[in-house]
């Protein structure tokens, strides 16, 4: 028997060609913007040249840009952790018990239907204009995708695998830890990624309305002073930070979901 033929493939090595391909479109857009502005076809006060935005970024970095980025990132991180933890907890509780589902789920679904910005005045009334309302708003944004992903993930676990757990006399806790959560992890992971995306979105909403620091503040400051370059610089930073944090979660996903035998895994 050829028992040595089996190896455990990790990620395929031929990923490198994709990276430049992904940069192609941004590069074309940047060049188009630069030439458009320099030739005078586009007014520079509406769309500053990419080189101008870069220069603004450099200037800002001498004037507290790091603090803006840091406070926004910290808010997203804290709000996301809080909302995601609650999402996994309540999602598991609802998925595991019909009664809990009957009690909680209708209310949560109704809350989910509330547009994010509708929370803002209420949170400001209740919690003032300090960090608390921002963190709560971000947590609300992160909560629902994680909650939905956890409920769907645990609810969708193969009954046959659960039966194996019963055969080996796993208690409720052990069944959750050893069977249900690992099996639900792909769906929970998708929820986490969506939740993180919404956390960034809700952070901007929170900072646009009341903040003295952060990227959202930078955005509204840029608008008030008619500095399109600052606005675009902040947008670029948001794009980079969002992408970087999502890449972090994707790395976790690859690390912990490598066992999946899926279309995505062989691409």
């Amino acid at each position, binding site marked *: 028997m050829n028992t040595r033929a089996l190896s*455990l493939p990790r990620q395929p090595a031929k990923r490198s060609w994709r990276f430049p391909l992904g940069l192609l479109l941004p590069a074309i857009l940047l060049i188009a913007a630069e030439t458009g502005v320099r030739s005078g076809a586009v007014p520079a006060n509406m769309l500053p040249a990419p080189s101008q935005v870069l220069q603004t970024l450099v200037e800002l970095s001498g004037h507290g840009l790091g603090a803006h980025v840091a406070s926004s990132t910290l808010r997203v991180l804290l709000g996301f952790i809080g909302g995601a933890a609650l999402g996994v907890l309540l999602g598991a509780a609802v998925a595991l018990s019909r009664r809990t589902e009957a009690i909680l789920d209708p209310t949560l679904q109704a809350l989910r239907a509330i547009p994010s910005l509708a929370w803002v005045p209420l949170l400001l009334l209740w919690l003032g204009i300090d960090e608390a309302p921002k963190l709560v708003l971000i947590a609300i944004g992160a909560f629902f995708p994680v909650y939905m992903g956890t409920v769907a993930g645990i609810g969708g676990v193969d009954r046959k695998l659960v039966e*194996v757990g019963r055969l080996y006399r796993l208690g409720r806790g052990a069944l959750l830890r050893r069977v249900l959560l690992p099996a639900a992890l792909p769906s929970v992971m998708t929820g986490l990624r969506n939740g993180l995306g919404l956390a960034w979105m809700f952070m901007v909403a929170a900072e646009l309305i009341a903040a003295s620091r952060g990227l959202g503040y930078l955005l509204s400051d840029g608008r008030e002073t008619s500095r399109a370059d600052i606005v675009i610089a902040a947008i670029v930073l948001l794009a980079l930070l969002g992408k970087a944090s999502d890449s972090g979660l994707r790395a976790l996903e690859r690390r912990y979901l490598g*066992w999946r035998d899926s279309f995505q895994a062989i691409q």
Partner: protein
Amino acid sequence: MTVLFNLAIDSKRHGERQVLRDVRLSLAPGEIVSLVGASGCGKSTLLAIAAGLDVAYRGRVLLGGASIRGPVDGIGLVFQEPRLFPWLTAAQNIAFGGVADAARVDALLHDVGLAAYGAALPHQLSGGQAQRVAIARGLYTQPRVLLLDEPFSAVDAFTRMQLQDVLLAVAAARQLTVLLVTHDIDEALHLSDRVVLLGPGALESFSVAAPRPRVRGDGASAAVKRALLEQLQASHAF
């Protein structure tokens, strides 16, 4: 006859439908018994009761004279599908039902012919290999009785023969008592000491006297096969 495993099911219902009634089945230590019957006759239900997964019935199950209700280490079960946990390696799947013991896992991997596959994930295994892992998992708690629910029905004929040989080898090495549900009469005749037909009436037993090791297709059990098939047809004629 000394009895190791005894099933006495007075009644099992699925809602309004009577699935099993007055089923009496005893297995001697080391005996290999196949349970055959048309689909829907309650074979899998009987096995679920024997494994302790189904406790909503009237009757009792005895292992070595002690009444059991619910799964126990002394009884192993192999399902129709491998039912491996896709996020665990073959070795981790095997040890799922007990305390981790690398030496015991290695011995089982060796016994089922997968010595080099301990680190493999389920999706890297063929269907036959996955079912070998499932058999090893069923044996990990060192059961005295191994129950198998049509375990080889989803693999090709050649793999099935290999898996049957694996089962015979591990059963002989451990002096296992085996109760196998199958719809394959030839498989039943090749593996068992006794074939039990589960029909609408009482159980009917057919002894398979052919000596071991057996040769497939040598016709040694032709008379038993004919009797079995006749009875199977008779019991399902309406």
